[in-house]
């Protein structure tokens, strides 16, 4: 720059003027780039533009001076000798001028280029000289360059200026402003001199500015925000394109403040005027919302914001923005409506919504219903303590755990339940659904959720659960009853096939899976044996009547027969359609067996009682005799008396008659005694059936076991198996054998020097007759007594009448057999009973 000053003395002022704006630019723009959106930068931009224009003007001036210099140089060159030094000087200037200079001929071939110019393009001057100048232009610009060069040639001496891009050797592009002029060169050849100024920076700035303006316009359009300026003093109004659009005025409309008033909704005009008047008076910014009434009748909501700035001339100017907030207003109204709906819905559904700031531990938002659920005052912020105080103490730890878990899990929905404890002591049960909001930093910042009041549902559910539990318990109770009272439960369908069978049938050994699908009469084993029973049972089922204690026989899995007692009840659906039977069954095999055994036992006991009566007949005969002999004595005596009265000298007929009457009375009395004794000894009808004598012996043993034990007598039996059957009355034969056994026991009563043993022996002889012997080892029977023991009234007992053996012999003889003393061994006696066979008797 110093060199330039020194060489170009006359140019110093212009150079200074040239540099100063740039310096000023540098001062204003660097280091930060200005922002067109910022109104504060506007003066800078304006200053820049002004400086640029001034610079450009100065540069033009410089060029014109340079052309003068060139013409002078041309003149000088024609005077070679004189001007050589000056040429050299000029060459230096040309070479080092910070402007690119090209000299091309009419065909566009570079004749000369200064070093600065070549260097700027990345070439050595020699690389360009002799080549087409088009080489440094973009392909698409080359026709333009030819045209421009041609124009210069046609208008010799006239300057032409244009802006174009040039390509560096490395392919990069720079913007230049070219100033060209054709002139006569030696030998009348025309050359075109071109000076190029690098305007890349300016171009870039212009592009940026245009882009900024485009962005601003775009932004205004998108944001429905127009900008405006209003100089109150001058009445000058500036509107951006978007402002025109918002007010629906043609951009060519001449602006004045009345336009705004015209468009303002009549209802809002007063307020608008008031706002603006106040702004004028106070000279300060304003912000207001108002409505426009558009020509088509529609209404727009505007938000205007302005600030007062003082212009360079000291006037107040309002600069501001106006935003069409119709959509926002509508959205807001919509939102308000939605919120109203939501609040109503929340109230109806008892569902509150909320948002919780997990860092600040407070509600970011809580709906009215949330407040109602917690009993909060909607107008007041609630502290974390208040919130905690409203949560049931038992649920507090769990509830505090929820956000922590949500934060750890980072997002996703989660649900939890808790109870709210209201100040009045009431408890609300809340079911909460929430999710965590994950911020851009990946951490959970907020929980959003709903609280649903499920107190009623919970109560209802508890009631239901209680009812169900009661029902279950009741069902279990009845099941227990049924299962306790029976072995299994069953159900049949309308077709009487078993549909259900309770599992606890193992006791009876019946497998449920085997009987399901079968009919009862398919399971039973006595259908053929007892057709009438089953016919009645099926009639009951067909009539759909309940039945009780129906007994049938079936077999277990193991194949053993069991008796089942079953009771059932038909059941119907709500419409009265028959669905089948339900019932219980019990294995009563043991009961039936016990009944049979008991019947047997009772029969045996009855028989024993009878046998006992018979065996004690000996004792009875004492009183029998007495009872009979008394009337007999009276009869005989009265008979004698009667004879006495008749035999008198004067027969006393009256006394004789009286005696005979007494005789008759006593005769009747005697017969009455006989009748009573007969009744005592009588036992049903005698029944002659085929019998096995061994069975009768076993019966007797069962009956006399107690007697054997109490008299310390051991019993030995020698029973021959498979004896032929005899025909007889079981009870009478039992009496005979019992009598023999009892006699044996009695005969051994005094025995103390040897074991008291009784032997019962059964056999049959060659004649096929059955023999039964009862042997004792008692006192025995003397030879003399042996002939008489069977006589009536023979007895060796002090208290007996000796009827026992006599009766026994009578019974045996009535059976076609005999009873005798078989042997008179020492010690003891053996009685032998011989009975003919069944067939023998029949034949």
């Amino acid at each position, binding site marked *: 720059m110093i060199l330039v000053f020194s060489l170009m003395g006359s140019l110093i002022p212009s150079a200074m003027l040239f540099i100063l704006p740039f310096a000023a630019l540098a001062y204003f723009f660097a280091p930060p780039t200005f922002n067109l959106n910022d109104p504060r930068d506007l003066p800078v931009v304006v200053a820049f533009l002004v400086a640029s224009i001034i610079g450009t003007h100065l540069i033009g001036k410089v060029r014109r001076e340079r052309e003068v210099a060139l013409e002078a140089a041309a003149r000088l060159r024609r005077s070679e000798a004189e001007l050589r030094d000056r040429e050299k000087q000029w060459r230096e200037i040309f070479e080092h001028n910070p402007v690119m200079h090209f000299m091309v001929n009419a065909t566009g071939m570079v004749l000369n280029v200064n070093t600065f110019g070549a260097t700027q393009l990345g070439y050595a001057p020699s690389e360009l000289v002799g080549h087409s100048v088009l080489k440094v232009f973009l392909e698409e610009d080359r026709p333009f360059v030819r045209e421009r060069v041609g124009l210069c040639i046609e208008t010799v001496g006239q300057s032409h200026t244009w802006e174009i891009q040039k390509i560096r050797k490395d392919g990069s592009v720079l913007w230049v402003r070219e100033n060209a002029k054709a002139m006569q060169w030696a030998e009348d050849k025309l050359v075109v001199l071109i000076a190029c100024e690098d305007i890349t920076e300016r171009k870039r700035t212009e592009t940026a500015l245009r882009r900024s303006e485009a962005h601003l316009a775009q932004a205004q359009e998108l944001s429905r925000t127009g900008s405006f300026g209003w100089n109150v003093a001058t009445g000058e109004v500036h509107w951006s394109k978007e402002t025109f659009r918002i007010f629906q005025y043609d951009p060519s409309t001449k602006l004045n403040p009345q336009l705004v008033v015209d468009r303002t909704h009549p209802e809002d005009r007063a307020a608008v005027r008031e706002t603006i008047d106040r702004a004028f008076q106070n000279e300060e910014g304003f912000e207001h919302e108002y409505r426009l009434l558009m020509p088509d009748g529609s209404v727009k909501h505007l938000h205007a914001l302005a600030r007062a700035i003082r212009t360079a001339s000291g006037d107040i100017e309002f600069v501001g923005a106006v935003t069409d907030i119709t959509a926002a207003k509508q959205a807001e109204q919509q939102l308000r409506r939605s919120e109203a709906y939501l609040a109503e819905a929340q109230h109806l559904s008892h569902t509150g919504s909320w948002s919780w700031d997990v860092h600040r531990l407070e509600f970011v938002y809580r709906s009215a219903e949330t407040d109602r659920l917690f009993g909060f005052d909607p107008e007041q912020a609630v502290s974390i303590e208040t919130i905690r105080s409203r949560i049931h103490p038992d649920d507090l730890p769990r509830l505090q755990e929820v956000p922590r878990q949500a934060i750890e899990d980072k997002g996703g929905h989660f649900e939890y339940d808790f109870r709210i404890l209201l100040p009045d002591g009431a408890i609300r049960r809340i079911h909460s659904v929430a999710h965590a909001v994950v911020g851009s930093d990946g951490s959970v910042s907020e929980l959003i959720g709903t609280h649903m009041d499920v107190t009623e549902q919970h109560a209802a559910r508890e009631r239901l659960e209680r009812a169900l539990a009661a029902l279950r318990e009741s069902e279990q109770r009845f099941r227990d009853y049924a299962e306790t009272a029976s072995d299994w439960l069953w159900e049949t369908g309308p077709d009487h096939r078993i549909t259900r069978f309770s599992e606890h049938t193992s006791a009876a050994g019946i497998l449920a899976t085997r009987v399901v699908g079968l009919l009862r009469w398919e399971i039973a084993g006595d259908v053929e044996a007892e057709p009438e029973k089953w016919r009645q049972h099926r009639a009951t089922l067909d009539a759909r009547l309940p039945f009780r204690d129906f007994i049938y026989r079936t077999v277990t899995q193991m194949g053993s027969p069991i008796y089942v007692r079953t009771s059932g009840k038909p059941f119907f659906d709500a419409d009265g359609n028959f669905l089948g039977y339900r019932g219980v069954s019990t294995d009563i095999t043991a009961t039936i067996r016990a009944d049979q055994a008991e019947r047997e036992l009772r029969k045996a006991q009855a028989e024993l009682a009878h046998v006992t009566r018979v065996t004690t007949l000996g004792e009875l005969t*004492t009183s029998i*005799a*007495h*009872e*009979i*002999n*008394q*009337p*007999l*004595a*009276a*009869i*005989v*005596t*009265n*008979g*004698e*008396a*009667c*004879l*006495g*009265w008749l*035999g*008198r000298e004067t027969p*006393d007929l009256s*006394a004789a008659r*009286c*005696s005979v009457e*007494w005789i008759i*009375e*006593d005769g009747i*009395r005697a017969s009455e005694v006989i009748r009573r004794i007969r009744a005592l000894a009588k036992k049903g009808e005698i029944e002659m059936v085929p019998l096995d004598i061994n069975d009768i012996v076993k019966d007797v043993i069962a009956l006399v076991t107690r007697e054997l034990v109490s008299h310390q007598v051991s019993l030995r039996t020698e029973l021959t198996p498979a004896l032929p059957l005899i025909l007889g009355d079981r009870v009478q034969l039992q009496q005979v054998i019992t009598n023999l056994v009892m006699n044996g026991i009695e005969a051994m009563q005094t025995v103390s020097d040897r074991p008291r043993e009784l032997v019962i022996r059964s056999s049959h002889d060659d004649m096929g007759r059955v023999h039964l012997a009862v042997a004792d080892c008692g006192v025995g029977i003397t030879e003399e007594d042996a002939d008489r023991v069977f006589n009536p009234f023979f007895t060796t007992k002090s208290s007996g009448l000796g009827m026992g053996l006599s009766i026994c012999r009578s019974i045996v003889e009535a059976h076609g057999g005999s009873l005798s003393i078989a042997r008179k061994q020492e010690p003891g006696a053996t009685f032998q009973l011989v009975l003919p066979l069944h067939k023998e008797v029949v034949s």
Partner: protein
Amino acid sequence: MSTPPLISIVDDDGSVRAAINNLLKSRGYIVHTFVSAEEFLRSPHLNGTSCVITDVQMSTMSGLDLLTHMRAQGYSAPFIFITAFPDDRVRARALSAGAICFLAKPFAGQHLIRCLDTALDKHRGGASA
């Protein structure tokens, strides 16, 4: 025949008692009947009794007990036993105790009269002796 002999009958069976009474009256005896030994012992006829006809089996005091008791009291009136339940041992005891007869019911009327006559003779003889 100064005073006819007084016969006392002791038997708890009413019809037998009545029948013997009937028989003896038909034969002209003076007879008193008693339901039990105790009644007889309390009777004013005890001393005047020439012969006692008594049942052996009676509910409280048996005929044998009555004989033993009366002998112990010094009464020597002869005894005729009658019984509906004749037992050899009882018979032996009764006879050894001094009974004139031991008759099983029913007995023949003349058999009782014969016993009674024997007893009265014996008593009279005894008394005269």
